[in-house]
């Protein structure tokens, strides 16, 4: 064996040993994964970096709420240990990171993971392994409708088609001669919204004169806005995340198009972002969206007990976050629901117990203080797997210094 050969052999050996060492398995076995006498380990994937990184506020606020609960003694003496991992909204990263959470970190549940495509990528895997996949930060209706085939998965927020249906009904009642132009994200998220709008419009769906899809991660939506303007639409409907919704609003104004009415999907209707759009020249007064969180930027909600509690928790545990950005209350509301479910998942929480708690939420008991007053948590073991099914329409007023104000009352059964 030549010197070079020996050297190769040694280095190959080193490489293999390093590989094994790096990937060495922890041998510990537990009856209840993630549960010890003093802790409950949960984890989720979130876009901490990349084009969707504005949403990293959500896990930060969730962790703030868990710290608050831990300081109050935890859940039956167990502290919540929340692992936040970064998948950059890329499903090919979500898969190994989620496997790592389940098989290496041995989490009790995958909680709060953000985004439709990332969650679709691990949907099968988690259900096959019977790992709770809960309170996901995505409003697609899959999670609620497929509970028979995927009993370990449950969503959280009102689903997109239901919200869009309400816009359709509102247009029929208030804007009889509307010519609607829709810009939507070209995936299940945007298409579900569009389908909901058509259902809401019902027989009057021919009011939609143009629909313009854009692909996620696209650099500019100018082309779509110009096409909508050229179609003669007088009502602009935006089914997008803030990344494209805010530029769409600004571009509409810059191209000299002033639609009489604008509807903005709830996921983009964060006051902070609307203010940015207004400051960049967008005409946002009178724009309509839907709310369901206890949004402390809305004057009538600023002094509710839940609003105050949320602000106090954020000030103490996540001082860098701005409580008037409603993504913070998204995180608080989602984390509150997780804590409620864990408290009701048995003295020593079990995975099946957690799912049962999430599937049997009674609105008279599960009073989430971080939701818009009147919006409740409700699920039923058979038939209702959508935790939140109410929204309230809101209208923007006051330009760059403005806020949302409610239109009418909380609407039930949006689905």
């Amino acid at each position, binding site marked *: *064996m*030549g*010197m*070079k*050969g*020996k*050297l*190769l*052999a040694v*280095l*190959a*050996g080193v*490489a*293999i040993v390093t*590989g*094994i060492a*790096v*990937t060495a*398995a922890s041998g510990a076995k537990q009856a209840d994964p993630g549960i010890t006498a003093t802790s409950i380990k949960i984890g989720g994937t979130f*876009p*901490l*970096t*990349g084009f969707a990184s504005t949403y990293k506020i959500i896990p930060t606020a969730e962790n703030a709420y868990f710290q608050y609960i831990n300081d109050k003694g935890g859940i039956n003496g167990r502290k919540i240990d929340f692992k936040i*991992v*970064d*998948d*950059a909204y*890329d*499903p*090919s*990263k979500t*898969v*190994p*990171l989620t*496997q*790592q959470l*389940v*098989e*290496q970190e041995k989490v009790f549940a995958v909680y709060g993971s953000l985004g*439709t*495509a990332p969650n*679709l*990528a*691990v949907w*099968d*895997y988690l259900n*096959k392994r019977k790992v709770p996949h809960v309170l996901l930060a995505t409003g697609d209706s899959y999670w609620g409708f497929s509970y028979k085939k995927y009993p370990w998965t449950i969503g959280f927020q009102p689903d997109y088609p239901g919200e869009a249906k309400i816009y359709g009904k509102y247009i029929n009642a208030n804007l009889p001669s509307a010519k609607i132009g829709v810009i939507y994200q*070209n*995936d*299940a998220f945007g298409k579900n919204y569009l389908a909901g709008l058509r259902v809401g419009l019902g027989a009057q769906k021919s009011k939609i004169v143009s629909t313009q899809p854009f*692909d*996620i991660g696209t650099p500019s939506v100018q082309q779509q806005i110009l096409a909508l303007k050229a179609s003669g639409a007088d009502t602009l409907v935006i089914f997008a995340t803030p990344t494209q919704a805010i530029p769409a609003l600004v571009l509409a104004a810059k191209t000299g198009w002033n639609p009489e009415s604008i509807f903005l999907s709830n996921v983009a209707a964060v006051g902070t972002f609307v203010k940015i759009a207004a400051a960049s020249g967008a005409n946002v007064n009178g724009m309509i969206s839907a709310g369901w969180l206890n949004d402390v930027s809305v004057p009538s909600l600023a002094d509710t007990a839940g609003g105050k509690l949320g602000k106090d928790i954020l000030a103490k545990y996540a001082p860098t976050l701005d409580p008037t950005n409603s993504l913070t209350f998204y995180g608080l509301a989602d984390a509150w629901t997780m804590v409620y479910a864990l408290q009701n998942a048995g003295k020593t929480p079990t995975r099946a117990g957690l799912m049962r708690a999430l599937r049997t939420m009674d609105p008279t008991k599960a009073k989430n203080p971080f939701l818009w007053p009147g919006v409740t948590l409700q699920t039923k073991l058979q038939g209702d797997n959508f935790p939140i099914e109410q929204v309230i329409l809101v209208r923007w007023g006051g330009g760059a210094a403005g806020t949302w104000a409610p239109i009418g009352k909380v609407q039930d059964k949006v689905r």
Partner: protein
Amino acid sequence: MRSLPLGRLLVIGVAAVALALLPFQLSGFHQTQAARVALYFVAILGLNILTGYTGQISIGHGAFMAIGGYTTVLLSIHQHLNLILTLPVSVAVTFAAGILVGIPALRLSGVYLALATFALAVSVPQFPLKFSKFLGGSNGLRTTDTPSYIWLYGVSWACAAIGFVLAWLLLRGRIGRAFRAIRDSEVAAASSGVALPIYKTFAFGVSAAYAGVAGSLLVLVTNGYVQPGLFGLLLSLQILIGAAVAGLGSLYGVLVGAVFIALLPTVAADVPVIGSAHGQDVVFGLIVILVMILLPNGFVGLLARLDRLFKTAIKSDPKTS
């Protein structure tokens, strides 16, 4: 690489035994991690045949991986084909795709070829968005069944072993000589009777076929779920980075390149900054710059250097002479 010296044979033997015994030591998660190493090994091997041995650069191998990956999923959904049988089909389809790309690429060289393949990497993932009824759009498609961990481990490493042996057989003989002649000087190769068009398109086809299998395996490791984001531009670049780290024009360094790109995302997950998904992109970029400056011949170049150092040290030591 005319013949296999005993030393190398021994290394390969040790590696094979280690790989066969490894699954008994590994948890399911680590088996899939090992399968990732294998699939990147195959992809880098394929790129190395094209870029390292034939001198044709490609920044577009993610596109061939996409074609392979979608082939597997479509066959599973529509033909209910056993997953393992989709792999040879994937090879055939991507070989054909590689030949088709190789023909126009004949007229291009150097930076122009790089740009053309770059365009390929950008454009292919757009097809599923355009034909979303058939190809699933940005929400993707999934295979009808998903393989077990041990299946992934075994099949991936079997593919890696077969791919390695075939590459070795291909490159040690007449074809390999022709490839290297083209890399060193196209004019000299042509004037010595090497049919440039045939060898260059063939190299493209073979290389694409390797990428195709790797793409199929990547989809299977991702729980059988495919969507265009899986084959972004970054993937193409990672394969190229893996090949550069390994050392272009060598088969032995490939494993190091594969370990590097397969394991960085999960191993680094706990490290601040680097652990974030985009922090890793920066790390990849830095590594390329460092490799280019410090190790222009990659890992294999480092071995050769150490080897020389060793020999001079032994020669200057009077006791051993």
